[in-house]
């Protein structure tokens, strides 16, 4: 498989959320708005790329029986490092008192550890492939996940709060409250997956 193909594979054909249906728990929790979905997706992409690279480099030194615990330690270490770095250097409020990037994303970062996409890619791809290919696979899957989260987030935000990325599009009277609550997340995700399946058949 060419490197380009590996990269795009995770984006559409094996989209983590729509096709593999991995990581639904953090997805439903963080897609209440398009911005949150995008933020969670980008943070996951970063960790996914690094963890795939780290695991591809170390996998052949790790005996099969302790594979999973070893991978989890590596992933958790990476996530904690990202969390510490972000809270140190992207943590000052904006000029008009907007919350810092870390304040907006902070709650999602620890959630990446329990995201099964990261462990899933480590198991299915990085432990059997070369470092560069693994890095690309991680970034591709991550961007696919980012796209999926942004899409679900945009739909929920539009129907629930009448805006997309904070930009007001619909009047407040047309807001359907349920879409920013948990049930709305399930409904939107279900319809989007159905649509993706339909499009894939043709």
């Amino acid at each position, binding site marked *: 498989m060419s490197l380009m193909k590996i990269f795009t594979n995770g984006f559409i054909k094996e989209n983590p959320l729509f096709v593999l249906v991995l990581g639904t728990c953090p997805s439903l929790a963080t897609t209440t708005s398009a911005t949150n979905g995008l933020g969670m997706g980008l943070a996951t992409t970063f960790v996914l790329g690094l963890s795939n690279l780290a695991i591809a480099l170390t996998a052949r030194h790790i005996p099969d029986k302790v594979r999973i615990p070893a991978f989890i330690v590596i992933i958790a270490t990476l996530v904690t490092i990202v969390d510490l770095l972000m809270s*140190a250097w992207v943590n000052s409020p904006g000029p008009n008192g907007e919350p810092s990037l870390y304040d907006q994303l902070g709650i999602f970062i620890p959630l990446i550890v329990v995201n099964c996409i990261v462990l899933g890619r480590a198991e299915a791809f990085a432990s059997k492939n070369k470092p560069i290919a693994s890095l690309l696979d991680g970034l591709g899957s991550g961007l696919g996940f980012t796209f999926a989260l942004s899409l679900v987030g945009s739909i929920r935000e539009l129907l629930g709060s009448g805006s997309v990325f904070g930009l007001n599009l619909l009047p407040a009277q047309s807001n359907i*409250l349920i879409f920013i609550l948990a049930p709305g997340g399930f409904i939107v995700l279900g319809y989007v997956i159905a649509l993706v399946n339909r499009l894939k058949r043709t």
Partner: protein
Amino acid sequence: MAKKESTLWNLLSTLVMITFFSSALLGGTYLLTKDPIAEAAAEKKNFAIKKVLPGFDNHPGQESYTIQSIDQTGELIGYPGLSEGKLVGTAVETYTMKGFGGLIRLMVGLDPEGKILSISVLEQKETPGLGTHITDKEFQDLFIGKNPGEMPLKVRKDGGDIDAITAATISSRAFCDAVQRAYDSWKNHTKKND
């Protein structure tokens, strides 16, 4: 290169190696980021104080004192803002547990008479799109200039004069509770010390 075999020694040594390197990396990152993290937290606090207090020339962040909450459920922090040695206002770091998502922390600026100067939300876990409107200027502006000692802060439903956020009465109520707590506790504290 062949994969390592799953002998007991290999399992043990691999896990020990991985955890050792991980903890070394984490320790290093912690040492590296410790000071910037503390700085960022202090900067954030100073920023909130600056937002709720008018021109002061001292360092309220370093002259803070603790205030016992009026209902004895916790502690608030007061940051006095002085201009040429005269008190121009106090920023009170307050909280409530009555939010829809539990804890809400606010910074409330009170002038020497207890009138509300400005409010800033430090931490909240309200429902996105509903309760999160407590961070909006339009809602916070309802409180500016009010003296909670003359007219207790309550939403209209409870007989007060604050227009609650649509579909977020609980969050609005909690917000009132936190601001009222700031005033009552601060008043109680200054009375005791006079």
